[in-house]
């Protein structure tokens, strides 16, 4: 955890976007968490009344997945992810700055890698050319856009779409972190 970094203000607009986005992500995750608890309670009540909500389990899991990735992006902004601090606690402030820079750059590279994987998986260019998810499935054997959910009556892509959003959100937070590091270096 890096309270000293997360409490520092990154310069200007980027800092405001960073903080605002993190607030929005966390608020979304909190609402989804409340919703999943309600869905689960309703499922139990409905089942015991002999009218099971067949969509409830899949809906609750879907809400949790969305909350998890939205919250994980916010946690990146707040430095809330669990990490091992063996090195960090032993470094001088100057060495600590280099460590934080290395960490941030590696995270950025990792998320860039993940984003490129997700881009190839979703193949937005192919989708544009094919004109529809169904056509893309028929021509390129890419079924991502037509995959159904079991009980929700939705396409699975609505659930999966949190993955690219997670990459975008995490990207903004990492950019703001880099800006803060640059500021601290001055």
């Amino acid at each position: 955890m890096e309270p000293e970094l997360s409490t520092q203000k990154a310069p200007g607009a980027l800092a405001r976007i960073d903080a605002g986005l993190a607030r929005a992500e966390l608020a979304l995750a909190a609402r989804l968490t409340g919703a999943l608890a309600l869905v689960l309670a309703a499922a139990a009540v409905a089942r015991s009344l002999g009218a099971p909500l067949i969509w409830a389990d899949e809906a609750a899991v879907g809400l949790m997945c969305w909350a998890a990735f939205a919250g994980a992006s916010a946690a990146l902004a707040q430095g809330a992810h669990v990490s091992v601090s063996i090195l960090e606690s032993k470094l001088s402030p100057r060495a600590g700055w280099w460590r934080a820079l290395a960490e941030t750059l590696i995270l950025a590279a990792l998320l860039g890698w993940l984003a490129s994987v997700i881009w190839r998986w979703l193949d937005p260019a192919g989708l544009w050319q094919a004109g529809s998810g169904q056509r893309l499935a028929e021509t390129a054997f890419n079924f991502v856009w037509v995959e159904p959910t079991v009980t929700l009556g939705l396409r699975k892509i609505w659930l999966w779409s949190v993955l690219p959003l997670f990459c975008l959100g995490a990207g903004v937070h990492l950019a703001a972190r880099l800006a803060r590091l640059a500021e601290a270096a001055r």
Partner: protein
Amino acid sequence: MTVLALFSGLLVLGLPVAFAILAAALWQIAATGNPALFLSVPQQLFAGIESYGLLALPVFILLGELMNAAGAGRRLLALAALAVGPVRGGLAQVTLVANAMMAAILGSSVAQITLMSKLAVPEMERAGYPRDLAAAVTAAGGLLAPVLPPSMLLILFGVTAQIPVGELFVAGVVPGLLLFAALAAVTAAGARRRNLPVARRPATGRGRIVLAALPSALVPLAMIASILGGIATAVEAGTFGILATLVVGFAIHRELRVADLWPALKSTALTSAVILMLVAAAGLWSWIAAWQNLPAQAGALISGLTSDPLVFMLLYNLMLILIGMVIDPIPALILVVPVFLPIATGSYGFDPLQMGVVTCLNLTLGLLTPPVGSGLFTAARLNGVRPERLARLTLPYLAAGGAVILLTALWPAVSGGLGRLLN
């Protein structure tokens, strides 16, 4: 090997554990040289947390937050402390007893650790315990959930091995009680060494404490009744616990305010997200390990080394410890059992019930072993203790657990005796 070095390096550098796991998994996938695998990565990452059982995480964290805000946790622990009396480290023993009781209702360690971290750790701190030690006891207590029936892990083993789940539950009882005794013994020894406070005689009368705790007792009662009454699954029971907490907190104790709800939800969302991100990344890693057929290779290696059942059993347990270090119990079970159970029962003549209990006990310890342990990180995150510090403090508990595993592995009567007695 390269991938483990990369992973360790990133951990030491201070990368969030979840992202270090993600990097290791992507690296290992790239090393297969099969680009088609990357097309499955997003789905597998998502699939890692697409599981009904994991709903216990947000539900029980929220329950813990609300019980705390409602003052229900404090009152219930005061009640439990009455039962234990003036023992050194009594509150820590109370925490273990409460864990054992919860383990007999729930099957999820993480649910248990989250709830007790919210309820018991603040109480222990107030009573003068060091916070890191309180967190360690709480994390260790979570080990009871998958061992004392009902247990998700034993059920999964039963489904995989195609043996009756009821018999597995019976086989798990004695080892589970032994584990409880071992954890209590470690706690007692630690209490003496660290000179933990003796639970004081309460200032108010016993009657007052019991009376004050009665409404709060509605919360566990609502959960137990809804499960045993056939209304709710363990996860759903958590939501009934939440409803009962709201009623008790708003209407009876009047300690809960509407303004408490939003922070509780936000804190729940953040904590669950942090842990679920770990689980998702670990799921991706165990998927690629399965795809590469690593378990079968390990199986061939071990059965090629020895024909002696005892040596096989020891090697098997050693392997489970190593696997448990990097993979959480449920994915590890799915990786290991289909490969090793046929070898153990077919070539070495072991009883599948004994294998089940030994396997589940051993993999359960993996929840607390670094570098990948969702129980460890949950307890560290919730209690604000450094994971490496917590790992050191839980070491004696893991050793005690190891002793119970050794007993169960070397002495078939530990798991099989009760079943024979009942028949």
